[in-house]
């Protein structure tokens, strides 16, 4: 019951991928993509986080319950940020922040 033992080569690969993605996110920040700069940065960060969760944190080999727990965390974070945007996003149609107007 020693759990899944991943090969060292996998860890090295993931590490290299994370490093490459770090360089990529810095590089992408210097290109003017307009609104999409933020999106690209978040997609890369999300991809990096997924790699860490999936391989370094062994979620790939973990029980369904553990996978469900991870998904719950992401889901409720999405609720938090999403419903904040419902207010602040729709506020922008009607009014500017009190401080600027």
């Amino acid at each position, binding site marked *: 019951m020693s759990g899944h033992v991943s090969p060292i080569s996998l860890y090295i690969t993931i590490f290299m991928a994370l490093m490459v993605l770090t360089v990529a996110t810095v590089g992408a920040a210097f290109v003017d993509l307009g609104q999409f700069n933020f999106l690209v940065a978040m997609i890369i960060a999300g991809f990096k986080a997924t790699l860490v969760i999936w391989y370094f944190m062994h979620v790939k080999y973990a029980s369904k319950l553990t996978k469900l727990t991870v998904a719950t965390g992401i889901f409720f974070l999405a609720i938090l940020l999403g419903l904040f*945007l419902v207010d602040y996003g729709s506020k922008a149609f009607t009014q500017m922040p009190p401080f600027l107007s």
Partner: protein
Amino acid sequence: MSNVAAHADDRGHAHAHHPALQHHFDTMAQQKEAAVVGMWVFLLTEILFFGGLFAAYMVYRIWYFDAFAEASRSLSLFWGGLNTAVLIGSSLTMAMAVRCAQTNKRTATVNWLILTMILGAVFLGVKVIEYADKFEHHHVPGYNFQWAAAHEAPAAGEHAVAASEGAAAAEGHRELSLTPAQLQLTTQIYFSLYFTMTGLHALHMIIGIGIMLVITRMAYQGKFDQEYYTPVEMAGLYWHFVDIVWIFLFPLLYLVERHV
């Protein structure tokens, strides 16, 4: 792996219990699974803990984007990038430590753990350098916060050196939607969030290093084997989580708008 557990069950009490098995669990597998789920539930709370900060960040970034871009450019990409690399490296060493514990390599486990702690300390050291820089530039929010001073008061002499990197980016490359007075306040919000986020992240790292000190000692005393290495794995999960937080903090704080 489940084979082993089944065997232990078959033989019932004739099979000696592992010394680390607590009385209210039936098998080591049950105990380990409980610990893994428990740790993930704890990380769930951590996600929402940082989530509150991310929500605040999101709101102010939408409102004061120009200020965030300005303030973000005053951060050193070199130190930030270096720290990202250091932390990802420490995640690798941590994963290796867990792997060595899984395969019952005592000395290697201890060494990888020590290396992880060293990398963690390097990260914190870099953070100290960055924080010191903020203090010099009056970029620490509060009553001494001065955004304009760093750029517009070279006459004071002592600030001239300090005004190197950020000033170059700030000096009128493009028109800002904010007046200097507004910029003074809104960049302070950026730095308030910067310090709260990185400060809490650093606090988590300090706690992580503290946990690892204990774990390393336990590993050195030979308390772990391939059946029982849960504390190493738990410390690993925590450390990787702290790494993930930084993976998001880095683009959010350092890379708001670098292409101008």
